[in-house]
């Protein structure tokens, strides 16, 4: 950690020096710390939940944006549509299919770069229609594309300054690339936002370090391998949980039962079925909680078609043990298409 801080100090100095020797930029490019990267990533992952659930009457979504920020859906209408301000963004988030357990936006490939006044980023989004809670509707890939983002650090944490959606199209005539990483828009300077000091952390009064966040990310990343590849009759899978852990559904308690459950699922040395995205992590008084989207894909072998087996989300409680971070509880909730959020 000392090295990381020292590196940060040095980078700040280098930026400072180069700033004086070259032309002074209007808005300096900050140094992003590990926590900055993680916090921006968390913002990006919260977006999926806020939009799909329409939580807080759409304001959970709106509040991911800074004051005066915009969302542009370039796929809406002939020339796209821009939503600006809290009310309009909230209205956007309560339109369409929404529900407390509705999962649709799988965000991956999040690339973040420092930029003058804050940071910019780009992400893929896969938008899936998951069969409605097992009512027989067939799950499918609805559409997808990318988000181009500008982030700004506010007193409340990192927020979207702008986000634009571009729909994926291939085979169409070549279009100009979305204006992005090389030419970030001018950002208004936000006083104090360039400090590498560890001021406000991720939303909550967290006690998680960057290392903790990364270890919890890695714990969750190990889950699908242990389940799908299952090299040791479920032992690797069971060992991701605390000894007194509870998995639902079906309710399964204790490592021997967890190992047995894992071995009852399809597996293979090269099998990939459980795809997790949008991993949100929050510190709690005695550890951390988290959630992530799951889409289980039956990849067609030997040219057979692929299909979506199920989708939904996990809700987790993590505990730090002498072995490292482990699942204390893990609950799967299938995606259910709600009516419009009230």
């Amino acid at each position, binding site marked *: 950690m000392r090295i990381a801080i020292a590196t940060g100090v040095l980078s700040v100095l280098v930026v400072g020096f180069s700033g004086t020797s070259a032309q002074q930029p209007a808005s300096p490019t900050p140094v992003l710390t590990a926590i900055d990267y993680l916090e921006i990533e968390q913002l990006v992952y919260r977006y999926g939940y806020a939009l799909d659930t329409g939580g807080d009457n759409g304001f959970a979504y709106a509040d991911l944006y800074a004051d005066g920020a915009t969302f542009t859906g370039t796929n809406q209408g002939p020339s796209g549509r821009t939503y600006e301000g809290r009310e309009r963004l909230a209205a956007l988030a309560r339109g369409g299919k929404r529900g407390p357990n509705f999962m649709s936006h799988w965000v991956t490939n999040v690339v973040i770069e420092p930029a003058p006044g804050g940071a910019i980023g780009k992400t893929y989004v*896969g938008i899936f229609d998951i069969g409605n809670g097992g009512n027989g509707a067939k799950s499918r*890939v609805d559409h997808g594309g990318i988000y181009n983002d500008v982030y700004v650090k506010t007193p409340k944490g990192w927020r979207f300054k702008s986000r634009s959606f571009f729909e*994926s199209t291939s085979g169409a005539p070549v279009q100009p690339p979305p204006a992005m990483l090389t030419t970030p828009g001018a950002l208004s300077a936000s006083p104090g936002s360039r400090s590498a000091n560890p001021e406000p952390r991720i939303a909550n009064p967290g006690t998680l370090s960057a290392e903790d966040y990364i270890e919890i990310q890695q714990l969750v990343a190990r889950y*699908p391998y242990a389940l799908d590849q299952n090299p040791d009759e479920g032992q690797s899978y069971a060992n991701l949980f605390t000894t007194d852990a509870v998995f639902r559904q079906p309710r399964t308690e204790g490592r021997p039962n967890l190992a047995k459950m894992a071995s009852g699922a399809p597996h*293979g040395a090269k099998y990939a079925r459980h795809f997790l995205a949008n991993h949100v992590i929050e510190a709690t008084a005695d550890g951390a909680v988290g959630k992530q989207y799951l*889409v289980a*894909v039956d990849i067609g*072998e030997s040219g057979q078609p692929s299909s979506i087996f199920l989708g939904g989300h996990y809700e987790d409680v993590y505990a730090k043990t002498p072995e490292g971070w482990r699942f204390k509880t893990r609950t799967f909730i299938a995606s259910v298409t709600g009516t419009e959020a009230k």
Partner: protein
Amino acid sequence: MTSGRLTTALGVAILAMLALTVLLPAQQREATTVARASANALAALDTIEIQQLVRKSAWALDSGDNYGYAYADLFTPDGTFVGTNQGEGRTYQGRDQLATLARGGTRGHTVQSHLTMNHLVKASAGGATGRAYVVVVDVGVVGKPNKVNHGGYYDDEYQKTPQGWRFKRRTYYESKVDVWPASSPRPGQ
């Protein structure tokens, strides 16, 4: 900050960076980081940079940017990609072959096909290793319905270079099931 303090801070920072990148042999470096007593012995920023590398590879592959060289430049000069699903398995080594790979197929800034997830990162003697799932979706292919095309996972070796973390070797395996218990429903059932 006084100039004396500034000099000290600068000195400490430079020493720390040198220690991190030059002076310490790999083994010693590992010994200092292992003390983190965690499953992950890389510094937080190392892990984050490796995560960014893997994410950038999807962007570079789908866009075919810079005539495929955006993808090739994510590898070390002797970097290798092995597509075990291509015939008997096919190997691409070095910048030109990797760029050729990345400009084959459907490419463009509006193509988003490789959704990478579940990225594992572990420290290794030569740098780091990792694995990531990838599901390849066909979205917005003119005249065709959107669908999952295929998927599997990447096995990676990463190396820290003066330009940052790079792929030393990446191998793609298509998903294949070995055991399908009777109790578990099969696709279409």
